[in-house]
C-alpha cells in the first residue's frame, strides 16, 4: 500500500523540445501517418512530451509505487492548442489521490503542460490501478 502522505507531491519535466522527427516517430509507432500539409502532432502525443513526469512518479523511490503491478486504468485529456515542431513544452504532474477499491489501489495523477510563454497546451488526468501482488 502506497503511503497516503505522498499525495500532493509534484514533478516537473525539463522543457521538451518538439521536433518533426519525434512527431513522425510517434505517428509511425501508432500507425497514424495522415498528413494535411502542416505537421500537427496527434493530440495523444501529449504522452511523449509529458512522459518524464510519469516516469518521475513511477521511479520515485520514496513513493515506491508497485510498478510491476501497475496498469493504466483511465486517461483524460483536454487540449488547449495544437502542438508543432519547435514547441518547447514543460509538463507538471501532481499525485492528487490514492484510494483503494477492493484489493486494488487507485492512484490519480494530474498533469498540465505549458509552452515557453507559460500558455496552457494540454492537461490530463491519469488513473493508475495497482493490482494486488
Amino acid at each position, binding site marked *: 500500500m502506497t503511503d497516503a502522505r505522498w499525495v500532493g507531491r509534484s514533478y516537473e519535466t525539463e522543457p521538451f523540445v518538439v521536433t518533426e522527427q519525434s512527431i513522425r516517430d510517434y505517428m509511425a509507432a501508432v500507425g*497514424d501517418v495522415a498528413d494535411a500539409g502542416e505537421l500537427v502532432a496527434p493530440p495523444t502525443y501529449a504522452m511523449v512530451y509529458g512522459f518524464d513526469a510519469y516516469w518521475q512518479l513511477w521511479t520515485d523511490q520514496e513513493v515506491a509505487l508497485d510498478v510491476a503491478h501497475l*496498469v493504466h486504468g483511465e*486517461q483524460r485529456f483536454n487540449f488547449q492548442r*495544437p502542438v508543432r515542431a519547435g514547441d518547447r513544452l514543460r509538463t507538471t504532474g501532481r499525485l492528487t489521490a490514492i484510494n483503494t477499491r477492493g484489493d486494488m489501489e487507485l492512484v490519480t495523477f494530474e498533469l498540465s503542460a505549458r509552452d515557453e510563454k507559460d500558455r496552457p497546451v494540454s492537461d490530463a488526468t491519469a488513473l493508475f490501478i495497482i493490482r494486488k501482488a
Partner: protein
Amino acid sequence: MTAQDFESINSGQALPSLTKHITVEQIRQYAEASGDRNPIHLDETFARSAGLPGVIAHGMLTMAFANQMLTDWLGDRSRLKRLQGRFAGMVLPGDDVTCSGSVASKDEQTRRVVINLVVTNQRGEKVLNKGVAEAEFSTQRSDNHAT
C-alpha cells in the same frame, strides 16, 4: 485528410470505424517512441511473473487509435479538444481492435461536437469504454500564433 464540414454533421451519426492489428513489433515501436519501456509491455517472462497472460499493449496505444479514428474524421488534428476513456480490458499481441464512435450532441452556438466512443477486440469485448471526445469547429482555424 479532408476537413469535416460542421454543417453536415448530425447527432447520432456514426464515425467511420478503424481497425488495427496488434503486434509485438508495434508495442516495441510504441515503447521506443513514447519512452514507456515498462517491462510488462516488452518482457514476456516479466509480464507473466506480474500475473499477466503475457506482454500487453500500452493503454495509450489503444487511445492513440481512438485519437486517429477521431482526427481522420475531423480532418484536422487541431479540432480535438477533449479525449477520455477507461481501459476496460487488456490488449495482447495478435488482437484486432476496432474503434467506433458516434456523435452524441452538436452545439450550433459553440460549434462543438461531443462524440461517444468505444474500442472492442475481435471477441467483441470492450478494451476501452466510457470514451468521450469533444471537437471544436472554429470559424477561424485554431492556432498557437493567435492571441
